[in-house]
């Protein structure tokens, strides 16, 4: 399963947070350290991790999120929003031209595997 390790750790993090009525800065820092490790273990780019953690830290302290949530839920929301941002923010679709055909060019490297026509297919 993809993301397994990361997912497990982030979920442990949100479980810790969910019930919290108060979160001190040192609570937050402790927890963020774990998140940071989890991201690095998942092979996320180091700079990306750093910025992600800083953003969560700053936003969680300057919390101006939705009023109806508890502090724990607010932090989870911040984490989720930041994660969505990292993954690209909004959905990115293909821009089809109004004057067809839309030309899509697929590029990339190629494996060293020999071509074999007995490969598995549907």
């Amino acid at each position, binding site marked *: 399963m993809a993301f397994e390790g*990361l997912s497990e750790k982030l979920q442990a993090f949100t479980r810790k947070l969910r019930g919290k009525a108060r979160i001190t800065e040192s609570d937050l820092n402790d927890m963020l350290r774990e998140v940071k490790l989890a991201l690095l273990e998942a092979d996320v780019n180091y700079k990306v991790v750093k910025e992600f953690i800083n953003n969560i830290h700053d936003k969680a302290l300057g919390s101006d999120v939705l009023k109806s949530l508890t502090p724990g839920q607010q932090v989870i929301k911040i984490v989720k929003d930041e994660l969505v941002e990292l993954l690209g923010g909004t959905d990115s*679709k293909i*821009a089809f031209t109004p004057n067809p055909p839309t*030309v899509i060019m697929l590029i990339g490297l190629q494996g060293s595997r020999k071509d074999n026509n007995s490969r598995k297919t549907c």
Partner: protein
Amino acid sequence: MDFKVHGKTTTAGKLANLLRKQGKNPLLVACDVYRPAAIKQLQVVGGQLNIPVFANETEKDVVKIAKQAKEIAISKLNDVVILDTAGRLQIDEELMTELKNVKLGVKPHEILLVVDSMTGQEAVNIAQKFNEDLGIDGVVLTKLDGDTRGGAAISVKKVTGKPIKFAGTGEKLNEIEEFHPNRMASRILGMGDVLSIIEQAEEQFDAEEALKLEKKLRKNKELDLNDYLAQLRQVKKMGSFSSLLKMIPGMGNINLNVSDKEFEKIEAIICSMTNKERENPKLLNASRRMRIAKGSGTEVQDINKFMKSFELTQSMMKKMKSGNLDPRMKKMMGKLNLDKMSEDELNELANKLK
């Protein structure tokens, strides 16, 4: 170094299959002129899917092949052409030159890089390199069904600035998904009850905003630039379709999908206007536009183009609301991307709406 099989040819087939499900009529094109086996492979994939494949085994010039394919697509009414270009074991000048020639020669609307998510940061580096040397519009991340740790998926957008558009999730030709950052984040975080509470809170906020907008439109006021900006921000926050717009009867079809860069530009433009101008865009004469261009660090042409697309949205909304819009038009509008259209295309659409 251990080179992985990234899955380009398979992805070409998967993408064609997906787009056909969405009502398109794709043509696959074998552009790997170096390996006969690669052409054969694409033909096999096309055959399995019953999707046409264009190949020209006697032609070695990839640009010519791509151009021929475009002609054929036009005559056979294929509205999408998917080029499966050659890959190499590593990025070299020859490969780049060939890809650049194809880019110049056929001006593809989308250049998508196919990379294997299992390669982690290697995938990110490849994406960065291709983006710098050639320029790409997005990434297709394959093998997200494997035990990838996720590093590539989480880093690629931030590092390269280019989004993941599709994800391969298996070996079968239907195992491809549009990449939804929001859903992916929920999946990673284990979309529990907490996330649904958060979503409810967000929905409530949206509902209040939607109500405000609806009231305004009820009063027969036109959409102004303040509303437009609020919409755009909402879209940026929530995903490509505005959940806000969807809540207003008849408005669900309007697509306000813009790229991050475009969004920042529009935001700068609107924020450089006075409140009076935002409420009454008709005030925006040439000298005001000049001032706004300066203030927002854009060109007057940018303002003109943006205003045209804004006016178009305005008239679409009016028509939608009065319910007198041709259903074909309505269907089309959901798919339009106003900000990617040229001025001529915008004018043409405006005429159709009249």
